[in-house]
């Protein structure tokens, strides 16, 4: 099982800040989310400006995931 986290407007869209998902890589996380989320939340998650972090590092590939890994969906950031 991996923990999947949603922040800010993505959390609002998904309706929860985290899910537990059984997945062996990032593609499987996506596949599961596509099935379980409503289409609006799913589309928001797939927007170009959404970044994905695995264990708090941004990834652009399809990394293998281990039990306990943390996948996070990050909408555009702004601080200051």
């Amino acid at each position, binding site marked *: 099982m991996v923990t999947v986290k949603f922040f*800010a407007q993505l959390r*609002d869209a998904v309706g929860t800040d985290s899910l537990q998902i059984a997945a062996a890589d990032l593609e499987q996380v996506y596949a599961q989310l596509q099935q379980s989320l409503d289409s609006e939340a799913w589309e928001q998650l797939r927007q170009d400006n959404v970044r994905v972090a695995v264990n*708090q590092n941004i990834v652009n590939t399809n990394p293998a995931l281990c039990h306990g890994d943390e996948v*996070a969906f*990050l*909408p*555009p950031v*702004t*601080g*200051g």
Partner: protein
Amino acid sequence: MVIQQHDFDVAKIYDTMRNQAGSDAGAIVTFVGLVRDRNAIAGDGSTVSTLTLEHYPGMTEKSIASIIDEAQQRWPVPWVNVVHRVGEMQPSEQIVLVMVGSAHRDAAFAAAEFIMDYLKTKAVLWKRELSEAGERWLESTDQDAERSKNWQQN
């Protein structure tokens, strides 16, 4: 560098940096960001009542540490402190402090401005604004993006 919910005391942070820097520092630049009551992003003048900052514990700290690190690689600024608040804030409250000490003022000014520009565009933080016009998640402005980009060309 610290992420915290409660307000910060500028005087205390300043005194700490002065003590650390001793007589090697010629300049200390302090930036404090405050919550404005005017909705700047929507630009419709609607009054802001609450600003909420959300973070990703661990990753937010790492993103800010990396901004400070880049500033210290670019300029001789041995003393840098950043305090960023998260949670709910009302107009006129302090949101963020950036303090930079250096032997020379030009480095201190440049590094402080660089850190602020990068906090706007690269720090892992999210802002939700509650105003008369409703509630919305904010994004960094085109101007912020432009300012960040300019540093990459220098």
